[in-house]
């Protein structure tokens, strides 16, 4: 990005804009109370800044909680059409176009692509944590606000995008492969279809980033804007009833604050960690450079066919830096006579890419200053949640005050009873909330 005139500045403006939008949204609901989340570009921190690494595991908690580990590993390595969600029934987008556009069902801001030999043995696993917005910006598209309105014009270079794709994925990549050949339209509201990606804009779901390879994140919740908004939402204190202490249990907190995926590893821990600081009155932001990172891959207990440990150099950082990894490859060097699929972890052969991601530690870095400066009163819950009766480890959001639908049980239901009239009026279904999307318009 440094090589493109104006690119860094326009990217910074977009990131800064997402912070400002998030802060504005929090201020709107804080009802006169100050927002504890700040944009470090515009508001220099007061006093010493305390940085805290917030870490989580790379393998999807959603898949594991919904289907159990064995099935989750199987599902994680395949692609899902954008018409099929992993966190409940329903579709991310509606319309025939989306049935043949795919994403990786890996929702911990860590995605991987498995390369196999003709006999099915894994030869390479390629990881990324780069957000799609960055590649849209590299292409020079107009990035959208958190609400999906085109706003942030970036200074990109489509030739650079093509060159990087050829370096990272395949020399056979053609520019036409990477862009939308027609408007991609979401028909979730049949009366008001929305153009999500316009003709000629960069297509994050292009084949070289899905069926044929990996460059950046694709799971619809895996975006930088989502991370920034999550940080803002988590800086708000919540309690189920007036006069009660702020919620501290991270599971109850995300259920109440409704700021992310209930069943993930990432969102409950990111939100909970930030909220703990907010409860101590800190001003909070995400450390620059704002991003989603892989910290490290733990290879303890990984063995070669002869039982000796693997060489940690087989995990190679391709983009980013150690501790701030954006792209990495795990493969056995040529000439060794064996492949990734011939290795074992604790004696178990590696047959799924997810087995590696279980040992991946992800991170963002929170920055906090001015302890005790804020003394905000907690807000009431945004939503309630239901647990599946057959699998109470798996949660769904429900509108506040509504009952759970068939096959669902109320969970974290510690709030006062809702109005009976309201409860009868709004019978919840197990429909998950829609992801926030960064709509791309043509340049």
């Amino acid at each position: 990005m440094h090589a493109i005139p104006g690119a860094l500045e326009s990217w910074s403006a977009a990131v800064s804009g997402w912070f400002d939008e998030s802060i504005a949204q929090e201020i709107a609901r804080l009802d006169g109370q100050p927002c504890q989340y700040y944009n470090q570009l515009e508001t220099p921190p007061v006093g010493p800044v305390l940085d805290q690494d917030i870490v989580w595991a790379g393998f999807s908690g959603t898949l594991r909680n919904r289907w159990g580990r064995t099935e989750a590993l199987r599902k994680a390595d395949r692609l899902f059409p954008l018409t099929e969600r992993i966190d409940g029934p329903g579709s991310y987008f509606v319309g025939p176009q989306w049935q043949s556009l795919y994403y990786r069902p890996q929702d911990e801001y860590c995605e991987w692509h498995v390369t196999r030999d003709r006999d099915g043995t894994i030869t390479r696993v390629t990881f990324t944590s780069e957000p799609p917005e960055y590649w849209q910006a590299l292409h020079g598209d107009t990035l959208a606000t958190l609400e999906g309105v085109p706003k942030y014009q970036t200074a990109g270079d489509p030739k650079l995008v093509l060159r990087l794709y050829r370096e990272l994925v395949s020399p056979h990549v053609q520019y036409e492969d990477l862009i939308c050949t027609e408007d991609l339209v979401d028909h979730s509201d049949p009366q008001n279809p929305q153009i999500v990606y316009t003709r000629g804009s960069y297509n994050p779901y292009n084949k070289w980033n899905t069926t044929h390879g990996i460059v950046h994140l694709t799971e619809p919740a895996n975006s930088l804007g989502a991370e920034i908004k999550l940080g803002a939402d988590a800086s708000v204190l919540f309690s189920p009833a007036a006069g009660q202490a702020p919620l501290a249990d991270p599971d109850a907190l995300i259920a109440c604050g409704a700021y992310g995926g209930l069943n993930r590893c990432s969102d409950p821990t990111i939100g909970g960690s930030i909220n703990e600081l907010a409860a101590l009155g800190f001003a909070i932001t995400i450390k620059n450079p704002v991003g989603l990172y892989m910290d490290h891959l733990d290879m303890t207990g990984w063995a070669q066919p002869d039982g000796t440990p693997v060489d940690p150099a087989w995990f190679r950082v391709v983009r980013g830096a150690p501790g701030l990894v954006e792209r990495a490859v795990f493969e056995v060097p040529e000439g060794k006579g064996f492949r990734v699929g011939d290795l074992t972890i604790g004696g178990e052969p590696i047959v799924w890419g997810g087995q590696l991601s279980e040992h991946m530690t992800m991170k963002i870095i929170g920055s906090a200053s001015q302890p005790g400066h804020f003394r905000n009163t907690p807000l009431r819950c945004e939503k309630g949640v239901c647990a599946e009766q057959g699998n109470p480890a798996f949660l769904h959001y429900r509108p506040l005050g509504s009952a759970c639908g068939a096959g669902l049980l109320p969970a974290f239901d510690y709030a006062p009873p809702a109005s009976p009239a309201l409860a009868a009026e709004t019978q919840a279904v197990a429909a998950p909330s829609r992801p926030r999307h960064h709509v791309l318009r043509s340049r």
Partner: protein
Amino acid sequence: MTTSAPVEPVLDADEIQGNVVPGFLKPHMALVALAIDDVAAAKRWLGDVADQLTTLRVAMVSREKVRAHRGFRAEKRLATLGEIPDGVDDAWVNLAVSRGALDRLLHGGRHAPAVAQFADAGFQHGLAARSSLLGDPVDSAADGNPRNWVIGGPDNEADVLLVFGADRAEECVRILEEIREAAVASGLRLLYEERGAKLDDIGSEHFGFQDGVSQPGVRGRYDDTPASFVTPHTIDPEDTPDAWLYGLPGQYLVWPGEFVFGYPKSAADPLMPGAINLPGPAWCRNGSYLVFRRLRQDVPAFRTFVEEQTRALNGEPGEPGEPGFAGVSTDWVGSRIVGRWKSGAPVSRVPDADDVNLGIDRYSNNDFGYAAPAKAPPLASGHAPDSYPEAPADPIGLTCPMGAHIRKVNTRETPNDLGGRRASFARRILRRALPFGPPLPDPPASDPALGDRGLLFVSYQASIADQFEFLCNSWMGSATNPRSPGGFDLFIGEDGAPGAGRERHATIFGQGAATATLTTTTDWVVPTGGGYFFSPSISALREVLAA
């Protein structure tokens, strides 16, 4: 809205072995490991010994007497330390079998295919094969490598493990000898035998810290009366939801399926029973996995490390120390490594000095968290809430470091790398450990044990891979997880990452949030034996394994 207490399941008290729930927790223990050479003879012996195994129901009777005698408050516990109540003089035994033993015992029978149904990679592979995953040394010349273990290495894996517990040493020996002789007479081969015992009345391990303070509270009742909880529910019933969440104050109640097969495991909401956990054949119900690790403790190495770090933090004479750490003592440094003072008092409540009363006060020594300020709850007993200092919020680890042992293995209400509080519930284990070998005097004059002392670590859990192994590999043996900034669990964690040189480090905080990093490449806890086993129900032992 949730308006009533969750209904805890009735546990099959005549089927579950008593060391699983509620635990023997006796001052004396012993382990005997046996090999099966003659399957038919071994089956006959298993059928015989089944009648001698101590059940949950039997163990619970004594447990209630001990609780009544000792109470929970410090004053009564101090007055009764080490006492055995009238009418309690137990000598108990439990039994578990390895995966290899299941294979041999069930070979050719209708239950033979069931062995593959045990859905746990740890159990299926066995401890020796999984040792490197725990961070144990992979160098075959190292003491901690399975090739050099006294039991449980690739050439000396046990088929059967007997666990004994008794109030008096002589009774422990008597029952051990009686059952061992019967086993040997029946053709089983003795591989290993070792005795353990409390080192003092407070229950210290060899490094000097009270062990076993924070056990998860198992949900469940031992009969169908409403209040027959295996874990006492001590919080005022009016104080909800805390009265439903905790046994003793700060002791989270965990659904029994995390430890015993056939019962609900954790759901997302801790007040809601999860799915029934039966990750094996139907007859694994009321069983549990047993992990045994013989952990040798290098007491001089640990003491030397703590002393050296203390000197470095204070500064050598004439040299400045680390800013913010002036005046710290060896006990202070040790407390930051463990998260508790030697008495068991949590640093979260008493950050500056030990408090023996708090350390042994079971109403108080677990009543703290990290995410938010803790407040002593009203108690069902009518006892006044305690007067010890309350624990403030400590999300960053300024007082109890993230790398402290107790914070590594139990993240309490804070988020961790696998998500929220529920992720911690699914990692808890039931520990049943006692030290072996004589204590080393301080300073050491002579050592008749020649350094061979440590912990006979025994734990029960429903998944070896997701609970015991996860704790070792992903939390104690990680510089970053479950929370950062932290470092490794310097107390018992290992760094087995390839290329890392077994270096472990941890961050601690001094005055004014000053930080210091403690670093070592010395393993003062060295595995020297062990094994993974299945602890069957009484009927499974009789009707499946012995049949």
